[in-house]
């Protein structure tokens, strides 16, 4: 989350219903088509992507969240202290869009405006069966202050743009905040802990790493 020698570390969580294709979306992004044969990791739960633009060196840690209904209450453990969230729905499935709306509510409630949201309609290759219109999604996204994209993981459309835009926004926001002098405002880990009280004690011992 913080910069470290000019390196930005951001945590991005993936949220969405089971079959909206969030896994293939992130696999498409991280293991893109140039090297799907040789650098193959089969696990899609935690992925790392390093990108560099305008001299900003960004480390994206992309976390998949447990999406089954029975694990719903565990969400906060995954998304706390994240800088960005990618909320995926299937444009052919109205229900999955409603799920996204619920997620947005929950995230805003737990993390406030510190988290940048990207609402993503996946599977535009199946636009014939579209049940969520572009306008509806855009209007909603604007209302809740989120970015909106439509992608196809299958055809690799819009995936790169999505993550790049989200990253740019996170970097931009971070720079703005550090310029205002509140360099550690992003440390949300302590504010959103829902598990038990003992773990949420402030980690003030961080100051003990003596240098030089």
């Amino acid at each position, binding site marked *: 989350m913080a910069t470290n020698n000019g390196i930005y570390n951001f945590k991005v969580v993936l949220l969405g219903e089971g079959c909206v294709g969030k896994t293939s979306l992130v*696999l498409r992004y991280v293991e893109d088509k140039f090297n799907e044969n*040789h650098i193959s990791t089969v*696990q*899609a*739960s935690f992925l790392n992507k390093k990108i560099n633009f305008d001299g900003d060196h960004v480390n994206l840690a992309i976390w998949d969240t447990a999406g089954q209904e*029975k694990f719903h209450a565990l969400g906060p*453990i995954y998304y706390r202290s994240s800088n960005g969230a990618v909320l995926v729905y299937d444009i052919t499935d109205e229900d999955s869009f409603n799920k996204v709306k619920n997620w947005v509510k929950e995230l805003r409630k737990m993390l406030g405006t510190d988290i940048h949201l990207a609402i993503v309609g996946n599977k535009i290759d199946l636009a014939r069966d579209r049940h969520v219109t572009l306008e509806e999604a855009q209007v909603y996204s604007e209302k809740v202050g989120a970015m909106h994209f439509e992608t196809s993981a299958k055809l690799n459309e819009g995936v790169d743009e999505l993550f790049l835009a989200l990253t740019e926004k996170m970097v931009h926001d971070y720079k703005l905040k550090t310029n205002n002098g509140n360099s550690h405002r992003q440390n949300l880990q302590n504010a959103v802990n829902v598990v038990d009280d003992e773990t949420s004690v402030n980690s003030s011992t961080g100051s003990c790493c003596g240098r030089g």
Partner: protein
Amino acid sequence: MWSQYDENLCENPFFEEIRNNHSDIIRRATEENWVVCVPRNGALETADISIETILDHVLLHGAGSSFSTLSKKQVCVKNKQIYFDSNQLFSNNVDILFEETFYLGKTSKYTVWCIDRPLFLRLKCSSHSATVLESLHDCIDFLWVESLGHDILDNLRMLVDTFIQDHQEFETENLQCQKDIIGNLYSQCLQTSLKNKTVREKSMKNRQFLENLKVSVETYMQYCLGKKLMFAVNTLLYQTDAVINKIVRNSYSLRFKDLNIPEKFCTVITSAKCELNKINNYVTVLDKMYCLKQVFDVVCNAGKQQESECVTSDDLLQILVFLILKLNVSNWAANLIFLKEFRFSLLDNTDQNSYCLATLEAAIEFIKSNQFLEIRNLAFNSSVCSCSSQLSIEDIFKQVKEHKINFESEKKDVTLCHPLCACDKCKSAIQDCETEDFTNDKGQNLLIIASILGNCDVVEILLEEETSDVNFADCQGKTSVHYAAQHGFQDILLLLVNAGANINALDYEKNTALHLACNSGQENCVKAILYSTVDAEVNVGNFFGDTPLHLATKWGYLDIIRILLENGASIIVRNNRNQTVLNLATNCYVLQLFQSFGMRQSATICKSIKENNPVLVNERRASQVCTEHGLKPKNLDQSKKIDLLLRAIESNDLPLTCFYLGFSCNAALSVKRSACHPLCDCDKCSKDDEAVDSTTKAPSQIIHINTCNAEGYTPLHIAAKFGRTDILRLLLDDGALPNTQTYKTLYTPLHLACFYQRVQVVRELLKCGSCKVDLQDTKGNTPLFYACVKNDVKIVEILLANGADCTKKNYSGRSPLQESEDNLQYRVFKLMKNSLGCVLGRDGGQGFGVGAGDNGLF
């Protein structure tokens, strides 16, 4: 997953050279998807950077996984490694450390691979591979190598040692306080290590080095602190862990498919279990974290076998839940907090470690949640109800309630219209018949099933009808008492006890109901067992030698431990791994409890002997003891008691032995009588004893000292067999007969002592005077014979000195002398020959044909 190595490529001289002076390559790379390989910082000397090396490091896509460089060399990429042909013999592959995408505007981008060392270049000695510290071993190596000696290690250990002395009891502090204390120690350690000149210079220059230094200092510090730190965290979280343990222990029947885990992970569960089981072997955050990561790697490799399948967070979470349920780790909450809060060296919370931790946390939370409870209950009920009959359990229970009157009147023989008839009349007849002696596929009858499911009404009816045996055991040897106790159904347990169920029944793992109640943390049932019955055994060990107190301690159920201790549980009993409960205690509060109760316990035992001891000694004297065998126990209760007593002696539990026998460890000293001599039996002395006898009542609970068990073993036998010298002395002092023999084998304690080579015991036994040296067992062997068989020179010497006869033949006609001669036991043989010589010399020197043997041995 990528290696943890990271660096800012913009500061890499090789990459700088390309970007500044070869922008054409960059341009072509964006257009044609070339991959630029950059050796990590420090792997390539600045002098080596030339146009040739740069061309060697730009890869063009070929077919499949093959690439060619701009210099037209062929390489291929597999498993995050670049393979190439070169004139080097061994290292033809280079690790790709990470991949980075560089954007030039919104749409144009190119890919850079940071690699461990340059391609096609002869390996330089200086460029060892990128150091990523993963274990304690790595850290110690790092500190040792980088500081060129063990000064830093020594200094750190000294710091920690003084810390441990200064902070004896920091485990009862709260988390923040503990963190502050340890954090403080950490910064001290770091400062100390930075005093080393070489290390300071290197860490000023290289950021990666400084990070590694921090990690290794912290890890070594935690290693020096050892178990102390984990003990403190355990103490902090003992309640949470007890709650988790109770849930986990009660979920034993949960299976793989109940959690909806995909079939493909079946194969890796065992190896993942092995990995995760190691977590408490480690004391440092780094090692524990590594252990956790290994588990994830193992699981992810399972997915690899099937193409196009990937492992999702859901999979990982469910597998981790399953592993936690199946492992014998008792402090998950403490481990989690330890991993989360006691890592000061790395504050980044976006790496893979924190993902693993989040998954662990989620798994623990899930186990505590209501959803899990529902899954568990569902799975549990279905597992019980899987019966061979076509009737459902509910139906049968309903019938039991409705037809309760019919039970007695109806006969078992049902006459059907014809053998396979299915008319209504016959059907109901069959059903009634089935209800009566119904068992499911686990051999559980209705009473047991009702006890498992907690159906109190049905249990009550069944007990009233007396149709089924209260002590009926299923295929695991468990009775309904076991199940009621295990599942915490106090009301059913009380009903069963009331109906005369055997509370001390053992299942096939030798668990009593109390064991199971303690294992699954059912406090109400522990109370029910101990308060409602008088004869519940508290200190009996199961198949693994664990007493109920062992189990309660292992899982940290503080309240149960207290109840057990109040009801006479011993803290000195050892299990088969030779652990007392003191060894098993994982937190400070349990230890405190043991300490306070241990004191009180010994005090009460002392008190009880002061009151009872004279009586007991007298009683023992007066009673007529069979000379050949031990006393038979008078009743069933006594025979159980004697078994317990023998077990107590076996586990060298002196206080418990004393307790059963009704005197204290220092009984012999505490009772002073003015007898003529210690063994005097004259009228005056016995009168004295009787006088004491009449004033105090003899407690009926006490076992006679010469009582034997079913095989005829007396306490003295057991003490001799296991070499419990202290107890043996005590027994002899209090009138145990040294010449009692076991029933079938006719062993005396001396036989056993010789066979098991208990030198000290042999000495003690012979010291008591009345011990016969040459008694023969069923095979006619004397103790000396066994000493010869074992070739124990010491014992042979003692026996001979006490007049053992080395020529006494056993029933197969062999004497100890012959035995040792045939086995070429020179020293034993010589000893015997010498003693024989003395005897013969005394008797007038009759010739004895042992000369040949003599020659044979020399």
